[in-house]
């Protein structure tokens, strides 16, 4: 009986498979953001680097995508970091929900660098994120702060702005 209770509890505590679908879509969104932003001379690097902080599942999805797709003829390279100091030169930095507290620190480290910082919690554009995912009424949405895109010397398509919730 005890084992059944424990098994039941463990099964209830298990991660929902739905989260992998969400990671897949977030990876696709990041890929799409990359296509809708212009980096100055692609940073001079042959690779297009996306650094992921705190979401292994998303990193794996991106790695899968990197095998089949390129960004503006550059190879897609996925890196993972645990904190702001570990981040090497990147085009996109993604900060997971659970690592949101690093947002202002990452923004400070990346100040003036040509990088798109994408967070995963509503309200983080106020702390320097260019784009931040959130869920509302059963849908995945994103807020976008044009100021935090432009301050990094990036240009974005108006299509991106039109599809997001613009915050200042």
């Amino acid at each position, binding site marked *: 009986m005890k084992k059944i209770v424990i098994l039941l509890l463990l099964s209830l505590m298990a*991660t*929902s498979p739905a*989260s992998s679908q*969400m990671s897949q879509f977030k990876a696709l969104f990041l890929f*799409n953001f990359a296509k809708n932003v212009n980096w100055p001379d692609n940073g001079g690097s042959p690779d297009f680097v996306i650094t992921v902080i705190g979401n292994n599942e998303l990193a794996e999805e991106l790695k899968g995508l990197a095998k089949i797709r390129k960004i503006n003829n550059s190879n897609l390279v996925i890196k993972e970091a645990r904190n702001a100091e570990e981040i090497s030169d990147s085009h996109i930095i993604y900060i997971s929900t659970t690592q949101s507290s690093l947002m202002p620190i990452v923004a*400070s480290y990346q100040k003036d660098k040509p990088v798109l910082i994408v967070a995963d919690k509503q309200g983080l554009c106020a702390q320097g994120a260019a784009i931040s995912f959130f869920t509302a*009424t059963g849908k995945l949405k994103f807020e976008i702060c044009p100021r935090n895109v432009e301050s990094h010397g990036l240009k974005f398509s108006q*299509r991106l702005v039109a599809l997001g919730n613009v*915050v200042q």
Partner: protein
Amino acid sequence: MKKLIFLFILTFACVAGFSQDPQSKEMTREQVLDMSVDELSQLPLEDLMAAMDLMGVSSMEELTNLLINKGVSSASKRVENAFDSPLASTTLTKEEIEMSGATTIEEALRLVPGVIVREKTNGNFDVHLRGLDNLPQKNMLIYSENTNTLLMIDGRPVFNYVHGGIVWETLPVGFADIDRIEVVRGPASALYGPNAVNGVINIITEKTNESSSLVSGSAQMGTQNTYTGDIAMRKDWGNGITTAVTSNYQHRERDTEEIYVFGKEGMSLPDNSGGRNVFNEGRFFTLEQYERLVDANGLPISDPLDDIDELFQEPELARENYGINGYVGYNPEGIASFDLSGGYQNSYVNSSTLGDPPTSLGGRKSNTWYGNLQAAIGRLKLQTNYTGGTQNFATGDQGFKIDMGQFNASAEFDWQIKSLNLRPGVSFQSASYDDSPYLKEDESGYLNGKKELNTLAGSLRADYLAFGKLRLIAALRAEKYNYPDKLYGSWQFAGTLPIGERQRIRAVYSRANRSSFIINSHSNYTWDREGRMPPRFIHFAGNEDYDLMTVDMIELGYRVRPANNIVLEAEVFGSDSRNYGALMPSSTTLHLSPEIFQYAENEMMMLMATQPRTNIVYQNMKLDARQIGASVSMDWVLSSKLIAKMHATWQKTTLQDFSPYTRDEIIEMQMMSLAQQIEPNAMEIMTGQLTELSTSAKPEDLQDDVEHKSTPSLWGMVSLTYKPIEKVEISSYGYYLSEQTFANQYASQTIDPKFILNIKANYKVNNYAKVFVNARNILNDNSNEFAFMDKVGGIYLIGLRFNY
């Protein structure tokens, strides 16, 4: 009128409810499911979003984001994961509040760990954070009010600086305004200024954006003539301009018109046959009985100078209040944003009195308005606000009606330098209160003029992430008060350390203090007690030079997320609080003349003839309260259909240098010691050589290691929300309070443990409307939750929620 409003809202919601759902998309869900990653990656962003919309965010994902990955902004003054918060903090979202079925903001706080919520009369609550309530005890009921928790709405203090505490019914906002309520437990004066002694409750209003419903709200009606409703109209006008108008209303009645009268030895009620019914214990009486009650000496219990009909204009009413609020947001392209809000509230409640009558119940009326401006210019945050209006803290009692004005202004700079965040700030507060406009020529108020409390403060908070993971925080704040004319320092040192991705340990040491309150510094009230038990006059006086109550606390915390759908938290705390004070007897004087001896046969009459006058002065006492405690909490999304939450807090408070005497016992001791000197000095009095006898003697014996029983030793909540099908949601929570013993100047009362079970069942008619039944205290346990107050019992409501 209220029924008309209710019907209007009902009609509107039904019309909105039967409107059609939005149109479907071109792509189908099946098509999206069939697409490979390669194909999906070739979709333009619009189509990708459409595909994502079709797939939808799973309920589990949404619930996990809502309940497990919450944000909190009050612990560090910027949004961060509640899991990473350096302080013990809880965010209560509007969805959780709605799920719970709470009908007031106060009741919703039962969902927050560490919060003690006790109902006094239907819809009027005592709310304490962690405890330290009823200190000092054995004095007026005002000392049962929570003066240790700062309440803010969007950072604007909504606090009663007259007596200290929160006058809950004067909150202008309702559920339609609220986005979330954040509660920080533990001293937080270093972040928010004085009175955040045991913590802070920050009500954060919803920001209007393009996703906001144009009209949303709810209405419900139920037993005990309970009606509540709220409505919000929101519009995003584009170009960074948003507006919102909200309103809320409550009408709640008591199930009795009787009032509780404190017990007194030999208190009796003359009956029609010339006899007397004796009541040594306090109990509920009708107003007519209250007027006829006499004490053992045949003197009236009620104040003969009072007009009972003025004191209790509507004894059947528990609470009636309404509020309207307006919000304008302006976020132009660039670096600045502005949020302006303003509103008005009008309220009348019958709840525990803030005066000093022989009854526990008193009326309170307020009509106040406010304006609040918040501006963010780059990293500079500015806020200024003003709250004005009229408040009558004891209806029908002379001198309790005042005009109030409270001004706040603050500036903070948010400066991030790599891993270091610095936040310097300055703030100013001025609170003024004036009773003179409401006093007739021969009347005495308790201020007798306009009085002001001013506070100027400077603060600095440093938040540093060392080695990429160890977070260290130091916050310091210095405050200069005008009364007392002193400088106070408060601080907070905290550290958090992650252990892997899923665990956090944290530690806090902090100090906080109360501010000055008007009655402590400026009381000037002469209470004429003609026709009642002596003393004939009691004069209440403030003290402009005293020490502010201060607390030091150490806390250790642990959080763990064993899986993505569950978070557990534990905190252990110990605090030491001192510099308590109260309006306590200072001296008593008898006025002597040869004429008093005409009453030599009756000691009481002779004492009354001396017209005793007691001076009560606000003074510090040696009392020291030491509290240890622990809270545990859990949020668990078991499946997309089942959510479980719980929290429990245990605490023990021990008092050192505790005076076991009530205020009235000290007055009696002083009077009787003087009365005993009359006879030995009869000759001097007869010859006019002695015209006055005075004493300031007080019992000096103090007790140590006294267990403080006014705070329950254990309280907590367990909740379950079950969603068997898409359209049905059933949520229930039970709230438990262990035994407590409350003592004021007249009596003490032990409150039995109580378990309150609440259940709400929702049916979603369509995307625009839900109907629900809502049972508060469904087991109808009608024992009182707060000493000497009503036995409220179960309240059963029906209602609807709408958004369009």
